[in-house]
């Protein structure tokens, strides 16, 4: 094998010996300028509204909130110390972990079952698909209004049904033990149909001969699912999982209508608490610290996906 010849840039030129790198040909330089001009709007906007905010949030979280004439001063980790002792923050974090821990597996599980159903030749398949998917296109705020009515004590639909069955009256959203569960259910309802779409797309992309082979082998439906469909759906599951995780920390719109985080913070979530601290109490420094925690959680998940899940998953 011939030795690789040094490329042009490695060859010392008279210019580089003088400490000046060789300028690219005129045409090429213009080319590079064009490329960066195409990228410029996107990069500038991202810099201004994604990268800079991350940096400034981190910076603010180590400072105090400016109040009137008192400028903000460096307080080190004080905001984070306050956070550790803040019962509402701890409640919001615990609630959020519970909320994410329930919505993620439940919505993904339901999505998978829905997709397996509507992928088959079933009576009214198109209608079912529509029924499952409809919540996705409805605004969460509007949906929350409807569910609020659903849960209303005394004359809400849920109460009428449970009353007819002779069950005791319940105030689902007003009771600290049921409020979080009630808002979690809404999230599952909203999300399952959305995730179903991705599973459905993957199922439809599967080679039909796999199914025929399994049928000839006499495999049961369960075996076919476990040995063939489920492994092939793995990349989709990872994709859906990451989305479900992000949404688990982002979906708070319904709280504004249904519970306002109450009663007694029983249903508050991190982003909702962040909103309250930042825009009801106007404690921007503390709100920045909460933002840092939220961003850290989501970035952690992204890195985990990138470095662990993606490597373990078998791609076709």
């Amino acid at each position, binding site marked *: 094998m011939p030795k690789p010849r040094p490329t042009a840039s490695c060859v010392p030129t008279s210019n580089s010996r003088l400490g000046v790198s060789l300028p690219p040909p005129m045409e090429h330089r213009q080319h590079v300028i064009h490329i960066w001009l195409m990228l410029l709007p996107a990069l500038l*906007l*991202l810099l201004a509204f994604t990268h800079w905010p991350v940096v400034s949030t981190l910076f603010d979280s180590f400072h105090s909130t400016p109040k009137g004439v008192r400028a903000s001063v460096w307080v080190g980790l004080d905001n984070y110390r306050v956070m550790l002792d803040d019962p509402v923050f701890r409640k919001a974090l615990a609630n959020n972990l519970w909320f994410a821990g329930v919505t993620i597996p439940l919505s993904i599980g339901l999505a998978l079952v829905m997709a397996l159903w509507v992928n088959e030749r079933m009576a009214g398949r198109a209608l079912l698909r529509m029924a499952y998917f409809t919540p996705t296109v*409805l605004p969460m705020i509007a949906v929350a*209004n409807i569910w609020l009515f659903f849960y209303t004590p005394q004359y809400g639909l849920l109460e009428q049904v449970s009353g007819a069955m002779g069950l005791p009256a319940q105030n689902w959203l007003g009771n600290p033990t049921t409020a979080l569960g009630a808002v979690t259910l809404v999230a599952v309802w909203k999300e399952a149909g959305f995730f179903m779409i991705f599973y459905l797309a993957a199922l439809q992309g599967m080679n039909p001969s796999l199914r025929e082979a399994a049928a000839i082998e006499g495999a049961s439906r369960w075996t076919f699912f476990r040995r063939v469909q489920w492994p092939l759906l793995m990349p989709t599951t990872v994709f859906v999982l990451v989305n479900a995780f992000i949404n688990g920390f982002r979906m708070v719109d319904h709280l504004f209508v249904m519970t306002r985080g109450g009663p007694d913070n029983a249903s508050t979530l991190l982003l909702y608490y962040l*909103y309250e601290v930042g825009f009801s109490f106007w404690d921007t420094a503390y709100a920045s610290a909460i933002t840092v925690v939220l961003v850290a959680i989501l970035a952690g998940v992204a890195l985990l996906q990138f470095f662990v899940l993606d490597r373990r998953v078998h791609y076709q």
Partner: protein
Amino acid sequence: MSHTTQQRLAFNEPGWLDTLAAWLLGLLWLLPLVYAVWTAFHPAEFSTRFELSAPLTLNNFRRAWEAAPFARYFFNTTVLTGMILVTQLVISTLAAYAFARFRFRGRNLAFALVLVQLVVMPDLLVVANYKTMAQLGLVDSLLAIGLPYFASAFAIFLLRQTFMSIPKELDDAARVEGAGALQILWRVYVPLARPVYIAFALVSVSFHWNNFLWPLIVTNSVNARPLTVGLQVFSAVDQGIDWSIITAATLLSAAPLLIAFLLFQRQFVQSFMRAGIK
């Protein structure tokens, strides 16, 4: 042989139990919407009483429309989603093209910087972005709601993938004929990526039509409030909780997307699928 055929049929056909369960779940999924439609189209006294003889009415919609500036909210949301979509498409088309077709120093770093937004979404950075908007004097404007979303990492990623799959020969052929980079982008790449543009547009419009938290934070008057925020302000005011009016307002604000979805169901579902497969 007949044994195998039978088995294959049984294998493909879901049992009656599946069908029953699927339909029960489907009904459960539609129930809130059906309930809302019932309440909105009947007089208030029937909002929790289900009688088939109950008279139908459009009165609740009329009263909701008069009780809040919904016309203005509709206008704001339409302008907002349109503005965001157009800027997103232009900005990400240019960026995606640069990433897909050119090699240049710093490309990987620039692309990584773009991808950051997939995880650290504008929804989370509300405190810092509010500060920026206040400094720019943009608080309570449609522009302030849209700005953080104009550059979309998702769109750039999606279009880059699409552009990369377009054969380079088409590119070269156009270049031989003397077309410049932008001309090639416009004449070759954009038309070929049409389905992806439609997919992204539907996803973007449904996201921004429904977006709530950031618009709530950055607006404080009817001038800039989109539908979602207007609806929340409207239903939060305790007016003896007239459910029929609130559900009417709720359906009103969801109607454009819902109707579009019912009409173009297939397109919607396929678009969401396409946007999800990377």
